[in-house]
């Protein structure tokens, strides 16, 4: 069961408090009318679905009800970071190792 750092509550919480809402950073086209059917279909349905780092949208439904983003490895399930909507991730597939060897995770109080 994942342990997820809610950037709003500032704490690690159990997965049960959250709802996963799929891939993050998929902006709604500003002018949908200008989209072809194919482009609109891509927006609605086509996803990166990577094996490795995935930027995804989560909602802290049982807590502060806020959405936020997470960078999670879909193979090891490690969460490298969570970050606010409207901000960019620090870890990306190009820029970061797939696994962290840090002994402490984000928000872990020791």
């Amino acid at each position, binding site marked *: 069961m994942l342990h997820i750092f809610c950037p*709003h*509550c500032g704490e690690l919480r*159990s997965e049960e*408090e959250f709802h996963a809402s799929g891939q993050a950073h998929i902006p709604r086209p500003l002018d949908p009318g200008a989209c072809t059917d194919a482009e609109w279909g891509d927006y609605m349905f086509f996803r990166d679905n990577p094996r490795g780092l995935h930027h995804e949208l989560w909602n802290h439904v049982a*807590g*502060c*009800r806020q959405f936020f983003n997470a960078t999670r490895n879909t193979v090891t399930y490690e969460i490298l970071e969570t970050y606010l909507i409207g901000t960019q991730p620090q870890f990306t597939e190009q820029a970061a190792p797939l696994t962290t060897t840090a002994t402490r995770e984000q928000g872990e109080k020791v």
Partner: protein
Amino acid sequence: MTTANVYQQRPDSGAKAESSLHQANLAGLIGKGRKNPGVTVREKKLLGHLTLRGDAKDPAFAEGVHKALGLELPVALSLVAKEDTSLQWMGPDEWLLIVPGGQEFAVEHALRAALAGLHISVVNVSGGQQLLELSGPKVREVLMKSTSYDVHPDNFPVGKAVGTVFAKSQLVIRHTAEDTWELLIRRSFSDYWCLWLQDAAAEYGLNVEA
């Protein structure tokens, strides 16, 4: 232009009022529990509950709230209280204000006056939720059976309040004194909570207080 429609929702007096635990018949259990119970339950019913929304980063908002309530905006996961009024952080732009029953109309007016011109929201939710106070030496065990949140005092000191999962639903837990906790329960789920708590506390002894 009126920005919001606010009206006195509580009848003057004499109207029949039922808390959400009325039909769970909590009242019928008063005084029927074990001696030296591990857990004592007390309803804090018919209080005024207001959901306040606004921009915490805007100093004018915090000042306005302070002006209206005499309370500082609490930071994440905390609760500030003065006499019978408490203000709790619910989210980065959301707070729960609990006032004695009947004051919510006046308080909402005061808040709206103090926050005039700001983008805010105040919503009376008094009929939809209430507090259930749990006290006694075994409350922590009952909470441990019910929520995956860490209720150890190291992590959950007095004055902290968190929204989390509880059994198969969600609520807010407030730690108000050493062995005293409050649950913020939604009306329609009250029956479920009541059954759940009775069950979870059975092995420690449960007493219901008026």
